[in-house]
């Protein structure tokens, strides 16, 4: 009966991965600050948020799915489809944004709902179902158009380009606010509602959850719906960022989101992890990009190499962690 402790402090083992990611983030920031002039400023961190707001929202949805022990490969395509639908509806028939945005969110949630229903009702691996969803959504983008569609709606662009000034010359975009609200609500739902408890219990042991009378089926369907909603919202934020809709937007974003969740310390088998970890995971990915752009001479594919190495480290860490707790 030993409790895994981090140092002298009697910290429960479940916080360890998040702590490791947090330390890593701090170390990267300090190292960057020492190495590059102008790195150690608040705005650099805020820029990471600004550039990755859409990824953060998508990763939140992914966290729900992974916590139940599932996976959602469709998120990148749903993001692209959302940008495409938004852009085409505003450019073609000239629909106003306050109609377009809710419609996009409904479509995204609907796609998630259907995938979740198939996963649950037919007991098919989520990998396959969401892979099918991924192809479907990507294909639907091209039925709308094969080229990039610019967004020129004045209200939309004004909102997208507005700056929210903070103290000391620092600023953020509205997208960051949206993303942080999503994180806050999601964290609250995960930790303080029966639904949140069912998510953790399903991922921890689906058999046990069933025999405890928890609504396992409904929970699974709901997490995919949440993920669909988050992907659509991520798509809206991406169209703020890009001011265009394009079928080739967000290619491979599902893998970035999964990487962020795993680096954030969530077990891929489900049942253990925190939204805070996912936020840190997204920041780690963003900060790697920032460091590489500060370095100047390194090509951008170095980002991928670092992410790859980090993932290896974190998966090994999880392995050690779960091997200990299973004993």
């Amino acid at each position, binding site marked *: *009966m030993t409790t895994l402790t981090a140092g002298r402090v*009697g910290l429960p083992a479940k916080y360890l991965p998040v702590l490791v990611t947090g330390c890593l983030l701090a170390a990267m920031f300090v190292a960057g600050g020492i190495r590059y002039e102008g790195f150690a400023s608040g705005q650099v961190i805020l820029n990471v948020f600004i550039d990755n707001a859409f990824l953060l929202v998508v990763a939140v949805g992914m966290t729900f799915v992974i916590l139940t022990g599932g996976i959602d490969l469709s998120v990148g395509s749903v993001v692209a489809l959302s940008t495409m639908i938004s852009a085409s509806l505003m450019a073609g028939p000239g629909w106003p944004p306050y109609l377009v945005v809710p419609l996009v969110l409904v479509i995204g949630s609907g796609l998630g709902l259907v995938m979740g229903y198939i996963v649950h009702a037919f007991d098919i691996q989520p990998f396959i179902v969401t892979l099918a969803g991924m192809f479907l959504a990507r294909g639907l983008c091209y039925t709308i158009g094969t080229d990039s569609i610019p967004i020129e709606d004045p209200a939309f662009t004004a909102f997208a380009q507005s700056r929210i000034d903070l103290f000391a010359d620092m600023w953020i975009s509205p997208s960051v606010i949206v993303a942080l609200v999503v994180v806050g609500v999601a964290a609250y739902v995960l930790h303080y509602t029966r*639904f949140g*408890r069912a998510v953790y*219990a399903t991922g*921890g042991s689906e058999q046990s959850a069933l*025999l*405890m*009378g928890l609504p396992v089926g409904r929970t699974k369907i709901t997490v995919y719906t949440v993920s669909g909603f988050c992907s659509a919202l991520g798509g809206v934020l991406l169209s703020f960022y890009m001011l265009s809709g394009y079928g080739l937007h967000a290619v491979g974003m599902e893998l970035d989101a999964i990487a962020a969740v795993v680096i954030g310390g969530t077990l891929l088998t489900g049942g253990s992890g925190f939204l805070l970890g996912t936020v840190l995971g997204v920041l780690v990915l963003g900060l790697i990009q920032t460091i590489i752009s500060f370095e100047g001479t390194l090509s951008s594919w170095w980002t991928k190499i670092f992410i790859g190495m980090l993932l290896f480290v974190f998966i090994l860490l999880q392995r050690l962690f779960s091997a200990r*707790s299973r004993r």
Partner: protein
Amino acid sequence: MTEHILRMSGITKTFPGVKALQDVNLSVRRGEIHAICGENGAGKSTLMKVLSGVYPHGDYEGEIFFEGERCEFGGIRDSEHAGIVIIHQELALSPQLSIAENIFLGNERAKRGFIDWNRTNYEAAELMKRVGLRENPTTPISDIGVGKQQLVEIAKALSKEVRLLILDEPTAALNDDDSAHLLDLLRGLRDEGITCVIISHKLNEVTAIADAVTIIRDGRTIETLDMAADAVTEDRIISGMVGRALDNRFPPHEPTIGEEALRVEDWTVYSPSQPDRKVVDSAALTLRRGEIVGLAGLMGAGRTELAMSLFGRTYGVRISGKVFKDGKPVEIRNVQDAINHGLAYASEDRKRYGLNLIEDIKRNISAAGLRGLARRGWVNENEEYRIAEEFHRSMNIKAPSVNSVVGQLSGGNQQKVVLSKWIMTEPDVLILDEPTRGIDVGAKYEIYTIINQLADQGKAVLVISSELPELLGLCDRIYTLSEGRITGEVPRQEATQESLMHLMTKGQE
């Protein structure tokens, strides 16, 4: 040529905290069918795992002599090489491969690295003829029944030139025809000179087929009997299996028995994997408030299946029968219904079916009764913490705090968490499946005390257990289950281990 093909002497095998085998001796004569009998958990399967090298040499103490030679098996490959093949209760066949492929799996008929299919199928057909299996060698395993799969296992053993064949509960999953065929086959193999060791709970089969029987109890050899010379009967085996004294391992308890809480009538359940096999056959039970009722049965009798099918149809297909709660008929379609009707079920496999091991104590305790803690979906965490702390104290759960992860607790403390979880749902009827499995003696006493308290609070408790002394020490009334049917109902005063064992081994008339 020695008379004994196998001699195991002084075998002792220890698992962390438990001595599974203690100084066990086993001698098997050449060309006989040797049965090993004992209660669940007596150590039969462990002994066979030692013999077949699943637990390699050095992992146990003692010596094994096979064909007069001292053996130090490092793994199954070594023992198979020596001619010892074990067929486990859960068959180890690959369902999508053909019969022939399975027979020669790991032992392929190949020419210069390529499989010789003609030879594979031809030799497979020869072996299948020897075991009386009339099928096409290319038929996939998943297309044939369990009885025939058992024959494939034996054919596979024959292909390895087996000299000692070990069968662990070979007829447990078979119907009567298949069992009879299998026993005939074993007699035939004996005539061909193959020695068999068979582990079985079905004593009528043992007396019908075995030449000798070794009885194991609590990890020790009790005796080896020669069936013919000692004129062994089922009664004789039973008294060897159970002869254990009851001591004061149980807290005293005076029951106050009240109204009927749960009545089950004509309950029939079919196996989900073999939809034509009845796992529970028109069972009937009555549980009264304040009463602790035992359900005794050997492995495979259908105890857990009966309990789980009652608890929201979590096991089985084509379930039929009636359930009355407090005298009124109720329909229980899922777990939530069962909980709403005041039922609780603590699984025998608490790690897989009872707990979320990577979650902390308080969330495990609150999981089933979350509804009572939440308003419009929002969980009251302070209340949750308070209740968990209360159980932590009242159940004497030994853990630093209610935030400790359940996977790191000992078996007894895990079981207390499971019980707390169900007590929180305020049930009227608790079904406890092997509540003290894998728990040390001190913690067992605590669990018994908790069970007595639950009965004193007017709850009906059904205890399923493989340990007869436990049932005799704890229960007010005991049902026996054999091959899915309730074969007896005995009040505690009249029950003895022998009488229960008789009812538990009673076969189909």
